[in-house]
């Protein structure tokens, strides 16, 4: 079985293997004494929980864990796991990495397609099997199974939280949260890759190269925020970013401007604790109660 530990990964390829185990499971609240010995402070916090779980043998039933070069923490953790295994300090599944190149230039697109093809060979996925998985992704995208919810919407933007703890705070205030947890983000297939292209690896590579989410994307985060506001029909917005965020925080001024331009009531929380131990949930709930009043 193969699990993923990062964003922007080729879910269709993994589906085609018949061995996709989803996201590496982790307990965000886990004490991490071993991981703390190996990882420095600025890693995204999920890495600490994953590495501790790895050391505890939580992934011993997996064959491989796939990391992503479209995220700095993911690709660095790949090197750490490889090294710890080499030094006999860690066991568990094989760590592998997909070298996704995101620069909007031909050379990076070609690189992504080439490395995706190599990964397909490594995982023994034929072009036919991959094409079949791409077609299936089109079918799933159009099945309309995700019914719109009811009630007022609050857009939960910024860092993906570890679980539903912030969503639940939004719900307690009578709103419905529009926003993904980390696992939901990693498992989001995005728009389907081109079907019947004659070269499914190139089609999927083009999709991975162009996807607009994630820290290595060259898409405009403020534009994405505006699009999220429009698509969700939000009546309030919470922008929540954690202390360890090194990428999207650079767009905070533009995001703030986009929110102000929307005229929506907003709460902007930066440098926050990923586990919410600093009271973020209570602040969000209180903010939305005021909006409702």
């Amino acid at each position: 079985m193969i699990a993923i530990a990062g964003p922007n990964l080729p879910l269709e390829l993994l589906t085609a293997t018949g061995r996709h185990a989803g996201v590496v499971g982790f307990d965000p609240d886990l004490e991490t004494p071993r991981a703390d010995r190996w990882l420095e402070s600025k890693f995204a916090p999920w890495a600490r929980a994953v590495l501790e779980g790895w050391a505890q043998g939580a992934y011993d039933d997996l064959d491989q864990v796939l990391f992503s070069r479209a995220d700095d923490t993911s690709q660095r953790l790949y090197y750490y796991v490889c090294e710890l295994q080499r030094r006999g300090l860690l066991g568990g599944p094989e760590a592998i990495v997909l070298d996704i190149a995101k620069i909007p230039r031909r050379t990076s697109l070609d690189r992504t397609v080439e490395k995706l093809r190599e990964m397909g060979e490594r995982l023994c996925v034929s072009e036919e099997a991959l094409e079949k998985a791409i077609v299936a992704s089109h079918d799933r995208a159009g099945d309309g199974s995700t019914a719109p919810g009811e009630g007022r919407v609050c857009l939960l933007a910024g860092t993906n939280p570890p679980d539903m703890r912030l969503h639940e705070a939004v719900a307690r205030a009578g709103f419905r949260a529009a926003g993904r947890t980390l696992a939901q983000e990693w498992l989001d297939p995005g728009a389907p890759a081109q079907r019947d292209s004659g070269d499914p690896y190139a089609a999927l590579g083009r999709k991975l190269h162009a996807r607009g989410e994630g820290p290595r994307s060259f898409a405009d985060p403020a534009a994405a925020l505006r699009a999220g506001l429009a698509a969700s029909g939000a009546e309030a917005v919470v922008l929540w970013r954690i202390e360890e965020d090194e990428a999207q925080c650079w767009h905070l001024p533009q995001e703030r401007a986009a929110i102000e331009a929307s005229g929506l009531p907003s709460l902007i929380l930066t440098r926050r604790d990923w586990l919410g131990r600093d009271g973020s949930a209570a602040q969000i709930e209180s903010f939305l109660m005021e909006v409702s009043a």
Partner: protein
Amino acid sequence: MSQSANQRSRKMLACTAEATAYQKAFGQDLRRRVVDDQEPYAIVQADTPHELFHAMGIPIVTNQWWSAYISAKQLSGRYFDAMVDKGFPANSCKYCSLGLACTLANEPETAPWGGLPSPTVLVARLTCDCIQHVFGLWAHELGSEFFAMEAPAWEHKEEDWYANARADWERVYQPDRIAQMVREMEDLIVLLEERTGRKFDAAKFETLMERINEQEGYIWEAARAIGEARPCPVSIAEQMPNTMIPQWHRGSDWAVAHARKFRDEVLERIAQGQGAATQERLRLMWIGAGVWHDPGFYQALEENLGAVFVWSMYMPFAGPAYIRDIKGRPMEALASRVASMNETLHLPPWMSGWITSEAKRCGIDAAVILLPPDNRLSQSGTKLTALALEEAGVPVLMIDADMVDAKIWDHDRMVAMVEAFLRDKGLA
């Protein structure tokens, strides 16, 4: 503000003063070319292919050099505050963003050179999550263009890469990674030719590569001699400028000649038994970027403890990271140099393998590792390297500080911390 920042370091070598004087004159000349004459120029990261610009005669402002320049003028706090005032988080990565902060502050009256004019292009390798955003914003602010270069995943891992980097660079740095960088460099050359009207001269470039090998060979020879010599003839406060200043000008007549002169002076001091300190009792290793705002830190414990920082990465890196057998393929050789410069300094197994080997080579008694609190890239690999060093019998002190942000640096406290560590380990 630190309580006693910018302590001056004590210099012993004649060539140190020559290097700093050359760099000062170069800075003035660069300013004339870029600001007064409005020549096309580029802002580039340190780990990008400067050789292309040198071969094309295009002036470059290296981001790290510019940051150090601003920092040395005690302006970092002012500009970081200005960045926060503009809505950026206070914990944003400091090392690569000081230039952007200076531009955003938009204070011609305080900024070096009155601030940088719009460059032809900004170039950076994407070695972390933040750099593309910093350079993208900076390019936007300066009305310029950002040429990003990939930092591809490196799956071929050789712990002793440093032993094979010169001759077997194709294998060590992974052929497809080298090919990727060559393609990107070719794209960059096309862009530079179109924007500047200057032509890339392949013959001049190959000669430059050979001259760089000669230059770095002198530095590497001196580094090996320093590792073997007792006492250490030259403090890292002098190793750094005599390595880095020529490296900013690598392959030029001055740089090659200076590297040779530095080597000769080092060898002369060794021959005469001259040490950096009056009595060397402890040999220390500094792991991390230089603390530009307090160079005197490195010599603060020489007098009372005989503790001498004999190693920092800049000088010994010259050998394995720069010298390449060219094999008639200078672009590929250059790609192998650039494609992993950052990775070898910040990722396992390359960082830990090299530094542990260097500690052994240089007879290191203890190591001090810089751990910048807001910079994942600079932090990376430090804990695994510390473990490797300790397994090799080298005690390690990790200190939370930033190499350019003087606000969280206190000279006296840092010196006291190192002294306490050495005493605690029974070394002093």
